[in-house]
């Protein structure tokens, strides 16, 4: 074993979860906060050591970063079919280790301040640790089944944390919605795993993603409805990924998931769990690229592009700041999917892949920061709605500056980190598919607009009559903000293309100046538009909304997707399909069983008069029976 301590990275949060979960009542809240932060701090240090050893000490062997695998057989079915457990280190998993560790650690520290005085303080840290454990396991998975197991575990932790305020009805509904929608998508994932496992004979990532391996080369041998069976498997796996990453039309759970505590939204629903879908596609990227000349990858690209545009439009009209951020997350996830979708494999052709991973990294930092800032604002004004905020820059200077940094980063303004990653995605799209490129540019403008809409709405504009003067959050909350702001500002200068590429070889990425100019220009246009509309209170936004008419109403109601889902499930599925089934079940299946039971009871009612309770009557009947049997035996048994 070259990296023995990697096992500890997921196991420490698991131990913390068990400790805090089992001794929930006995541990004082302050102590449990320290235990949670301490455990994660050790994991973060180990993750940093791993990254250093992997990228720097070991470095490239023959020009590429070699994956390192440690695994043991976990469930043994036969010689060829077994499920392994272990860890896989390659550039993307090491990068994800860093992302998960940093964001999770920041959120842990932040939560110590944010959740102070909450009833379930210890429980909250236990759930956070459970989530960290599951996410590390997902990132380090060596095969499809291991990733599926941890995939469900992060789903469970997400469910638990969304429903954390379980006395609130809307939180419970949101938790159930998130669980059911992602579970529904995971059905596709499971079928995809089984199809791929059946036709390639392996679940192992190394064997599946080897471009010269039998798994990829054999794609043309089987076909189903005009496409290779493997393409179907990959599309089904992508459905699982789309469910977790909130791609259209499985995105409906993400905005509702904002019912959870804000640190949870920052950790799970912005930075880590929702990128699991992107990670999954990136993990199987050689399959997506080589099988059937990338048909499944085309699907990924278009779904990603559509989701990015769709979510950005909705984000403009929402008034709950967390919902704006949720739709923004969905839009940026679409961006990452789009980046993967337009990528090639070898060398500099893999720009989209590298850019997508880069954007995943930078987005994790600035979106976690945006959520934590939003949490800080909500902490101060006790409301999620824009109408209750304004002019907060005077009261909350640290939150103001860090939010501004994050907003500039997400808008793609140089030299903040989002500029570099977003620009590279756009360059990759420009080379592959002009339509997707145009969508990307439009989304970039919209992103800048809605981000600065809430920025101006929160920190400038009117001063609503605050009941109590808002004040800056405590140090435990502002320190993570500052650290994440530094990362958001500086992460763009990491030479990502040296480290994380599709073929693990590394190449040199250059800025494409004309395209970078366009990208930052549309960002600035978006910001300028938001400046005009929202810097000071004025009637422009309302007039604009009125002139857009129907379009505005549609976007305000999120294009009625939730209503469509309700219509399909309640009016069609429940009423037309489940209803008759339930009736049939009650009437005929249950009815038969109940009928048998009832007839037994009524028969026994009728014959119980025979039982007189007199022993000698019974004895007489018994003797008479014995005599009759005796006669039968003697005279008839011939």
């Amino acid at each position: 074993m070259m990296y023995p301590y990697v096992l500890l990275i997921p196991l420490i949060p698991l131990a913390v979860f068990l400790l805090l979960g089992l001794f929930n009542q006995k541990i004082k809240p302050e102590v449990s906060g320290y235990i949670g932060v301490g455990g994660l701090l050790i994991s973060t240090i180990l993750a940093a050591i791993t990254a250093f050893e992997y990228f720097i000490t070991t470095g490239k062997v023959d020009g590429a970063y070699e994956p390192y695998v440690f695994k043991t057989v976990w469930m043994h079915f036969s010689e060829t079919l077994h499920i392994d457990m272990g860890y896989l280190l390659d550039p993307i998993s090491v990068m994800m280790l860093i992302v998960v560790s940093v964001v999770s650690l920041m959120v842990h520290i932040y939560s110590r301040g944010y959740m102070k005085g909450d009833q379930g303080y210890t429980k909250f840290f236990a759930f956070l640790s459970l989530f960290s454990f599951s996410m590390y396991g997902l990132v380090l998975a060596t095969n499809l089944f291991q990733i599926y197991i941890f995939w469900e575990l992060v789903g469970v932790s997400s469910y638990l944390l969304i429903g954390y305020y379980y006395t609130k009805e809307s939180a419970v509904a949101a938790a159930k919605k998130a669980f059911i929608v992602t579970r529904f998508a995971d059905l596709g994932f499971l079928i995809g795993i089984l199809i791929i496992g059946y036709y390639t004979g392996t679940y192992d990532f190394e064997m599946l993603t080897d471009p010269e391996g039998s798994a990829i080369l054999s794609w043309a041998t089987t076909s189903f409805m005009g496409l290779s069976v493997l393409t179907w498997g990959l599309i089904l796996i992508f459905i699982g990924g789309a469910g977790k990453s909130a791609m259209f039309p499985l995105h409906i759970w993400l905005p509702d998931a904002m019912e959870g505590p804000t640190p949870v939204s920052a950790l799970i629903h912005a930075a880590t769990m929702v990128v699991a879908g992107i990670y999954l596609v990136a993990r199987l990227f050689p399959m997506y690229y080589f099988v059937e000349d990338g048909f499944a990858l085309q699907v990924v690209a278009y779904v990603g592009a559509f989701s990015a545009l769709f979510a950005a439009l909705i984000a403009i009209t929402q008034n709950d700041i967390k919902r704006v951020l949720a739709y923004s997350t969905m839009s940026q996830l679409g961006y990452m999917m789009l980046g993967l979708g337009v990528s090639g494999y070898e060398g500099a052709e893999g720009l989209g892949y590298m850019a997508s991973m880069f954007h995943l990294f930078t987005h994790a930092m600035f979106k976690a920061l945006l959520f934590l800032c939003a949490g800080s604002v909500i902490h101060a004004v006790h409301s999620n709605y824009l109408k209750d905020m304004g002019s907060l820059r005077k009261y909350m200077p640290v939150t103001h500056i860090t939010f501004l940094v994050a907003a500039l980063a997400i808008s793609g303004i140089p030299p903040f980190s989002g500029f570099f990653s977003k620009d590279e995605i756009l360059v990759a799209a420009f080379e592959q598919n002009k339509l997707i490129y145009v969508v990307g540019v439009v989304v970039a403008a919209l992103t800048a607009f809605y981000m600065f809409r809430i920025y101006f709405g929160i920190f400038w504009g009117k001063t609503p009559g605050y009941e109590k003067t808002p004040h800056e959050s405590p140090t435990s909350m502002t320190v993570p903000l500052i650290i994440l702001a530094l990362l958001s500002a500086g992460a763009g200068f990491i030479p990502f293309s040296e480290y994380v590429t599709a073929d693990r070889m590394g190449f040199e990425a250059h800025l494409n100046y004309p395209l970078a100019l366009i990208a930052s220009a549309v960002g600035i246009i978006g910001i300028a538009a938001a400046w005009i509309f929202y810097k000071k209170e004025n009637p422009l936004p309302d007039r604009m909304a009125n002139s857009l008419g129907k379009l505005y109403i549609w976007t305000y109601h999120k294009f009625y997707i939730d209503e469509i889902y309700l219509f399909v499930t309640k009016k069609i599925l429940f009423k037309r399909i489940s209803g008759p089934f339930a009736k049939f079940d009650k009437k005929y299946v249950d009815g038969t069983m109940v009928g048998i039971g009832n007839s037994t009871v009524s028969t026994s009612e009728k014959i119980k008069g025979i039982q007189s309770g007199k022993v000698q009557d019974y004895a007489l009947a018994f003797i008479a029976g014995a005599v009759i049997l005796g006669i039968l035996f003697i005279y008839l048994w011939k």
Partner: protein
Amino acid sequence: MIPGVSIYELLTVTSLLFFIGVYGFVTRKNLISILISVELILNAAVINFVVINKYLYPDMLQGAVFGIFIIAVAAAETALAVAIIINLYRQISSVEVEEIETMKH
């Protein structure tokens, strides 16, 4: 084997014993008498075992051994039955079988 007595006579005696027992079991009202009748039935069976063993398979012992076995079981069963009857008497101050019908339906 008893000289001058054939198996038929002995089996007739055990049959009589058996049916006396059955008659007593059905007609008697006192629990103790019923218990005695049961003993008669059992003893008829034991004698049957021994007689058939002795007359038909003189070299073997199974019948006699089984007879001893039944005696032992009958002793245990009697002890149990008497214990039940004593407890019943304590509860309802009677050993008449007519009065013990509280458990019906």
